[in-house]
């Protein structure tokens, strides 16, 4: 099987919108120590999906402001499409892992440096960082993008068309490198133009966060 087929299969088949939640639920207590803000590593993990729902509904850092009808629909879509599962870094909260909404949708934190992913053995094909923003697998290591409208490190200079073409084509900015797993663009590409434009309209209303996400890490040429 060739490389591109593997990427497509992984993206389409292995990853669901709830994958991040499942990953979080599966983190053993010892791994939870890696969470920066972990107050009690022995504390049992709670229902992470509830944490997502609660926090995504009311991001602490986002001031209340009137949204356009399109952006309002976009906010709803972002909530139900699981964007925060991977594009918002997770931390250990009082009830277990939860997205850090002070860094809402700002992607993999630039200060969490990763040189290479762990070796996958046995039945394991891929793995995620403690923040659920970096993923290692047969594609190398991928990092979730900064979706906030910061002009230098986020989507501040993107147009709605760039965003739409990226989702449709599965290519960075609609014409560059492949968008890597586990981004579920094979599902999202079936959304209507209106829905994708709504998502983009909402993302452009987010507080811009300066966070330069690292470039993906390829597997070595020899592999």
């Amino acid at each position: 099987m060739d490389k591109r087929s593997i990427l497509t299969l992984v993206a389409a088949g292995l990853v669901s919108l709830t994958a991040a939640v499942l990953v979080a639920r599966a983190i053993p207590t010892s791994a939870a120590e890696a969470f920066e803000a972990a107050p009690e590593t022995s504390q049992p993990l709670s229902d992470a999906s509830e944490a997502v729902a609660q926090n995504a509904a009311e991001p602490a850092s986002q001031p209340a402001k009137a949204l356009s009808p399109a952006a309002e629909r976009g906010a709803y879509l972002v909530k139900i499409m699981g964007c925060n599962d991977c594009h918002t870094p997770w931390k250990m909260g009082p009830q277990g892992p939860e997205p850090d909404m002070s860094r809402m949708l700002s992607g993999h934190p630039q200060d969490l440096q990763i040189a290479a992913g762990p070796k996958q053995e046995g039945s394991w094909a891929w793995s995620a960082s403690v923040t659920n923003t970096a993923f290692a697998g047969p594609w190398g290591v991928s990092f979730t993008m900064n979706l906030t409208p910061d002009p230098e490190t986020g989507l501040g200079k993107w147009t709605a068309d760039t965003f739409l073409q990226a989702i449709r084509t599965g290519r960075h900015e609609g014409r560059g490198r492949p968008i890597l797993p586990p981004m579920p663009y094979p599902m999202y590409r079936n959304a209507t133009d209106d829905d994708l434009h709504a998502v983009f309209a909402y993302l452009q209303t987010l507080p811009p966060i300066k966070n330069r996400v690292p470039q993906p890490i390829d597997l070595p040429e020899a592999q």
Partner: protein
Amino acid sequence: MIRAKQMILGVVATVAAAGAAASRAPGLATHAASAQAGAPATSVASGDAPAAPHLLSQTGLYGSDGSIGPRNLPFAPQYPLWSDGAAKSRWIQLPEGTAIDVSNIDVWRFPVGTKFWKEFAWGGRKVETRMIWKAGGRAWVFATYVWNEDQSDAAHAPEAGIMNVAEIAPGKRHSIPGTGDCLACHGGSPAVVLGFTALQLSDDRDPLAPHADPLAPGMATLRSLAEAGRLDPPREDLVSRPPRIRANDPVERAAIGYLSANCGGCHNGAGPLAHVGLDLLHDAAGGRGAPEHALRTAVGARGRYIVPGTSPDSSRIVAPGAPERSAIVQRMRSRRPSSQMPPLGTVIVDDEAVELVSRWVAGMRAPAADGGVTAQGMP
């Protein structure tokens, strides 16, 4: 091997004018670019563009006897796109009595009805023939046709393309591009058509251009088009002073030409990636006096891509004197999915071009102090 069931599918990729704002149905393969200078590709609902014919033999490329139709002019761009070593043949069909509007030397406007074809062959076997058809005032149709086993005809490929249709080197297979792949390059430049430009058809050909096909009798060039009255206005200057990249030396000229043709479709100052700030597209109008954009925006410039094994402080898009720290060279040399450039349309490194561009970079004088953009190589 090409399977028949893959070939009966066909979805036209259309590029139509921007403007309609209606939502389109999921999966519908209509896309838009604009032939207007500076207008980026966009996506619209379009019911106006016609469908491409199902068979290549129905497109007008061939005459009744199966040979290339007499109205179709062959041409050979002086800086060809690298296509993994394919033998490529190209033709243009201009409607009778029409001329190309070349009032903007860098963004030619073609008469409605103009068609372009490009045939790709490896090892003497035709694999695909792509067609670009200006079907309406602002509507372009993109289609590609996959050749059958007995090489008698080719059928319209599906919207998603076809993976791995033909082995072109040991362990390497060619894939038919999907709609999005066509638009990735052709929707990224205001000109839409990339290989039929003033620079590409200049009679002042670059002898160091990698993989260039020699001009054959009957091929369209600026001179032949002008003599046939196919350029409007006639632009005598395109014949008396044919476009040529101004450079310090022949290697630099060829390197800039190669980068313009292979990278400038996306990396230019007018398309959707203009915000990246890397402009490798030769500007025939500006090229008559101003420094090449490539020298201005790439040499010494810090890029977002950090060359593996270097630091953000030392990595450059083009690091004068240091190909090993130059992202352009290292990404041309890679065929890993996140690193390779171009990011699509090729699975084999263009060794000749890597050597050419490396030589260009290695020969540049390193700046005295590491720092900002320092354009080298221009008088």
